[in-house]
């Protein structure tokens, strides 16, 4: 029995910096339903990777796998080159992966302040979280004792993003940030993301509305039927979008 370690092509990778987050041949699914059929994806330090494609293609499942909420049943999840398959979601969160899940990443029955309190779970103290959140989004400060669920979708998303702003993560995962939000709010949200990116944060963002995310992306990957079918610069990918999405 051979005990070879290391990935194939390790020498090739050594030329570049190690990706912050990387999926190698990732396979995953729910029960008998296999959704990801071998996904390769790498987020390099300081870069923004946009994961595009119509719904049902496996974007959300990919995101879940990266957070550790969904275990892989094949392939590898690596953080800074280290294999972390099997680590729990809370452990991965503590390693600096900040994920804002699909829908609203807030607790609707808790107040704004209590939401921030829970965000201290990865080690940042509450005082700093409140300072950053209320400083960047004054509306949150005004509503600190209001239930998060009673705020507008945009305000809830601000609250969710505050976690990314204040906890200093190694990599940020954004899943369908725009879902159910008016276009104006969406562009505001992405302005905030752009600020974070300017600060050097690495980001993996899954987004159905390609055009809002392409301007800030360094790389775009198109996902269909549980596979990445195309990777390239935003410009290369944009040209193909309409036909991939709407056919014809």
């Amino acid at each position, binding site marked *: *029995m*051979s*005990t*070879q370690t290391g990935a*194939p092509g390790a020498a090739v990778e050594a030329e570049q910096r190690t990706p912050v987050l990387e999926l190698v*041949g990732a396979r995953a699914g729910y*029960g*008998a339903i*296999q959704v990801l*059929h*071998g996904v390769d994806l790498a987020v390099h330090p300081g870069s923004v990777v946009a994961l595009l494609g119509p719904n049902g293609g496996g974007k959300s499942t990919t995101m879940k796998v990266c*957070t*550790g*909420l969904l*275990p*892989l*049943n*094949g392939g*590898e999840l690596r953080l800074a080159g280290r294999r972390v*398959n*099997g680590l*729990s*979601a*809370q452990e991965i*969160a*503590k390693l600096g992966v*900040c*994920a804002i*899940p699909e829908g609203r*990443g*807030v*607790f*609707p*029955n*808790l107040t704004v302040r*209590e939401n921030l*309190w*829970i*965000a*201290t*779970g*990865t*080690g940042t103290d509450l005082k700093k979280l409140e300072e950053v959140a209320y400083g960047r989004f004054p509306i949150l400060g005004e509503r600190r004792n209001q239930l998060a669920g009673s705020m507008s979708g945009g305000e809830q998303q601000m609250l969710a993003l505050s*976690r990314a702003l204040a906890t200093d993560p190694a990599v940020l995962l954004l899943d369908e940030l725009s879902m159910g939000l008016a276009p104006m709010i969406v562009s505001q949200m992405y302005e905030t993301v752009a600020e974070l990116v300017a600060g050097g944060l690495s980001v993996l963002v899954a987004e159905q509305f390609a055009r809002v995310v392409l301007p800030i992306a360094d790389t775009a990957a198109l996902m269909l039927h549980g596979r990445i079918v195309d990777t390239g610069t935003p410009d290369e990918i944009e040209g193909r979008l309409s036909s991939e999405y709407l056919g014809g």
Partner: protein
Amino acid sequence: MTTFLTFTILGLVLGSVYAIAASGLVLTYNTSGIFNFAHGAQAMLGTFLYWQLSVGWGLPVWLSLLLVVGVFGPLMGLLLHKLIMGALRDTAEVAKIVVTVAVMLGMVYLSQWIWDPVEPRTLTMFFGSDASVEIAGVVVRLHEILCLAVALAIALGLRMLFHRTRVGVVMRGTVDSPDLLRLNGHDPARVAAISWALGSALAVLAGILITPVSGGSLEANALTLLVIDAFAAAMFGRLRNIPPAFVGAMVLGLLGAYVTAYFPSDWTWTGNFRVSLPMILLFIVIVVLPQDRLRGAATRTRERYRVPSVRAAATWGLVLLGIVFLYSLLLADSGITTLGLGMAFAIIALSLTLLTGYAGEMNLAPMSFAAIATVIVFHFGITGSGLDASLNLPGIALAVVATAVVGGLVALPALRLRGLYLALATLAFGALLSNMVLRDTVEHTLAGFTFTLFPDGTLIIPKPRFGPVDLGDPLTFLLVATALFALIALGLAVLRNSGYGRRLAAMKDSPAATAMLGQNLVKLKLSVFMLSAAIAGLGGILMSSAMGSVEGESFGLMASLALVMLVVVGGIGYISGALFGGVMSGIGFTLLVGTFNDLAISQPQAATFFELLGNVVMVGTALVGMGVGKNPSGSVQGIMDGYRSLREARPVLIGGAALVAVLYALALAGLYGSWTFTLLALVVVMALPAVGQKLMPHAVAPVEGHGHSDEIRDDEPFTDTLRDRLDLALGLPARVPGVRAAAPQKGEEVNAPA
């Protein structure tokens, strides 16, 4: 005015204890998704321990309290979560319910083992029952003031916890989304463990406080059920919120007190009504509360049941009849009677196979339907008197039909309920029936009729006689009961293979899809509930006549829950599970414990050992029940599967059969008793599949391996990696040198041929 104040205070005191218990229940339900039926038993166990420390061993009260509420309670909760509840998150509702029921029964058995129930124990009030103050002309005992104060402190304390501490806020977050908690770096399992510790301590505290208020005597069953009254309070907050649960608890306490104070004392139902009040409220609250709207099958359950073919059911019925007859030859009359009783229980158990196994509906009170049929047959079905009395067929038929109708009436308001809510509604019905009917020993006059539902607390039920067939003879009774079991089982197999059976299965798997195909779910549920009640009623009549005389206790909640648990342990989806569960709960306990006691008397030097063994059997059964979460399909089927794989190993099967035959012949010749034979034969039957595996490994087909079918799925293209792995598995050299054809990764081992 004084009466009003006195009873208001009494009501508030009771209410405050209910509130403490209910808050613990809500806490654990919210953080772990498990409704803890053992909550009352935890209170009971803690209270007994408190008695042991403070009264038994004479430790100071404060120290005993500290040890029990501060150490034992939390520790018990932590252990329960760690060992049992933590693993239940993704299991089916039935398994979740049965596991906590098993914990409850196990704790009751354990307490009866440690603290001999024959010996009386009492717990007095804190500060003594004389320490009191007078408020507005009403004497209030210090203990009562303490109860109120503690409840208030707990209400404030919980509020602080949930709003002023991070762990409390995280607990509230669990309700919204455990996954989001994990993304924030918190461990929901740790949060659940903490709340189990806290909930358990609250249960123990409630038990210690309520015992002196409700009379002071310590009795395991009664105390367990007393705290179950808190279920009603918890339901006021839909099991989600603690403040409404507190309100519900106070309503419960006050109503109970006012019923005692103002209901006419000459009204013959008052006493029983007062005791039943919490369960009546529980039933009403569950039925009235807005329900989740119709959804698809949210739980993809792990258990899968093979459908019995009609021919196999018929064959097995005959085999069963043969085995029972042969076995009866070894038994004395008393043994035959006991086995007949077991068969009667197995028939009651079949009602659960139909209702829960086939239709996916819950009933936690099957014995209540047995009780209804028994009461009816007692009043309308007895021919002759004295030693010549017997049950007649029209009476039995009437009782069975009437039970079906009652079953339908009970189910009607509860039909839109599912899962836990339905289980709790049937539990409430069972408790209500126990209190209102089975304790109804006084005479009523209603519209000119004078009657007593359960005269003298004991009903004498004679054996049935149909023409020349007299079930008074134990062997006839046993064979008729076995034949009836086999016939009903055959009927169920026919039904399961019919369109009706498929519709039941469809409703169980996806109510939404079934409704969309045009099925009126209410009608279907009602029909299966009535059918199930009828079967339970028939079994109940047989059970009662096998026992000869029955008491209210014979049909109590504990008996119902033990039966449900044992049937699930045996396999709720299978006839064999009903046979196992019925026979075990009907005779298993009496036989095993009785046998051990008999042995203990005949061999005094080993008496303690046999007593111990008897207790170990009881607690052990409950332990098996706790393991249901890991093996939801049931244990009997596990053995059957073992035999399925032996099909090709004919010599092993023949050898095993021959061995059992020899054992039987020796027993028949009187070389050893029936008990020894039973043990030996069971060992052979259980061990045979393993022996077969050893002796004839090639003939024994492996039970279809589920793990691999996921690996190679026919909707996937045959990739190179897959081919490489196959090559590796077959011991072929990798086709492309250097390709990682080694070290299969975690979770996808390749099975090398054996």
